[in-house]
């Protein structure tokens, strides 16, 4: 375990020494502060729109950070040849994959914490309340979704040689799942065989990331979701993470690294 944490520590150190997070955080803060300072039509419910924009930006920023940071992990190690001295140590390839995953996931967790603290502060200035449990549910679900995205991207980084192609494919897949994943079964009903079975198959195989999107709950101050359902959703995410990481380990196991 110590080796996995050592690799994860280096990943986190790299991410906070790079500028990606700071740029996205500052852009999100500036946009939200500008939007929050404008009082359109004297509408007292305008804060809902501010919250919606802020949460959308948080989702976009977190996905950008998760995918771009993960996509370059292994390819950059290969390209810069840092992989050679690393694998010459008593570190198995599985430990390396797990360390990379853990590092990216922890770094994204810290990033989410910063984003949600800002969001909470912004919402509190208008609503004068702190629905902490709602935020906790949202952040834990968001973090679980990022875990699935990170493991998928890590697998992609071992299949596709170029980080840019992997990142693009992952953005398309994740965007596709978030926007149309929930409608695939409805679309399948209107199709003929074998397309219907094919689309149903895709519907049941893909990780439904939209389950983890709790923006509406926060924007409209809906009551909390039962913690049992949150737990089940996190288990569902962990299952997908395990499948993608096992795939990554299998692909990496026999791959020549020189």
């Amino acid at each position: 375990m110590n080796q996995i944490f050592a690799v994860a520590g280096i990943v986190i150190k790299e991410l906070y020494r790079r500028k990606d997070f700071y740029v996205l955080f500052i852009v999100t803060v500036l946009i939200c502060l500008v939007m929050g300072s404008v009082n359109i039509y004297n509408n007292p419910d305008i804060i809902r729109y501010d919250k919606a924009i802020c949460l959308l930006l948080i989702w976009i920023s977190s996905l950008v950070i998760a995918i771009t940071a993960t996509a370059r992990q292994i390819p950059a190690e290969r390209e810069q040849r840092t992989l050679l001295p690393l694998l010459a140590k008593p570190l198995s390839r599985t430990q390396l994959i797990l360390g990379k995953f853990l590092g990216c996931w922890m770094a994204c967790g810290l990033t989410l914490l910063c984003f949600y603290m800002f969001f909470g502060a912004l919402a509190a200035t208008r609503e004068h309340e702190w629905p902490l449990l709602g935020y906790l549910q949202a952040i834990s679900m968001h973090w679980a979704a990022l875990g699935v995205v990170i493991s998928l991207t890590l697998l992609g980084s071992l299949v596709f040689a170029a980080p840019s192609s992997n990142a693009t494919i992952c953005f398309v897949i994740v965007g596709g799942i978030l926007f149309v994943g929930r409608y695939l079964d409805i679309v399948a009903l209107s199709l003929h065989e074998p397309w219907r079975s094919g689309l149903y198959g895709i519907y049941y195989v893909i990780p439904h990331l939209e389950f983890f999107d709790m923006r509406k709950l926060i924007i409209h101050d809906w009551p909390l979701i039962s913690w049992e359902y949150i737990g089940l959703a996190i288990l569902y995410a962990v299952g997908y993470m395990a499948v993608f990481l096992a795939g990554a380990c299998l692909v990496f196991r026999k791959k020549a690294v020189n």
Partner: protein
Amino acid sequence: MPTILAIQNLRVEFPARDRRQPVKVAVKNLSLSVGAGEVFGFLGPNGAGKTTTMNVMLGFTNATSGDILLFGTSVRQPIARQRIGYLPEMTYYYKFLTAEELLRFYARLFQIPKGEAEGRIDAALKLVELDHARKRLIKTYSKGMQQRVGLAQALINNPDLLILDEPSSGLDPLGRMKVRQIIQRLKDEGKTVFFSSHEMGEVETVCDRVAILHEGELCAEGRVKDLVDRHQCNLEQVFLRVVGYQNQPL
């Protein structure tokens, strides 16, 4: 003298890109053994199969047949790498880290206790004369300094076997001399060193035994002194004869 490294009938083939082409055989039935405390020079022209052999030795590439044992354990087991230090031919390390942070990271991979690791980091940085630059980011280092960080990371676990792939490559004469001094010092400490080099003077000075590889095949092996005496010339000329070099008029 116990055997530290044993290469047994190693054969490495790489598939051709075009299926109509034959497979490329990088190493052909290579067998070697290196004993404890020896400094072993692994020589050969470019493309002879030296780096490929080292890559199999470290588990980076899979052998087509044959095996390599490090301390009696197959190289496929990560534990076999617990007692080795490795310096790759071209060294690039995490540029966002300082030398001290890099060594601390590698010490963690070897599971060296924290207090002991700090002592070893100090000793390794002093040995490669980078103590003054330990808190500087590696991206600010010159090539020679990066090579020395490479040597320091290879020494962090106090290895019994050091594998160096062209350690003097690209260094100025001063840098080469320092590398040679470090190898000599490790030899005096009783460490086993396995290194490839094109610097025949360096090899002749520090090596006990050498093996010369050409087109994947072992062409000569033995004590440096014996090879030099047998051919009645220096090691560079022995090397050129063994690989079949004919001096053509320009």
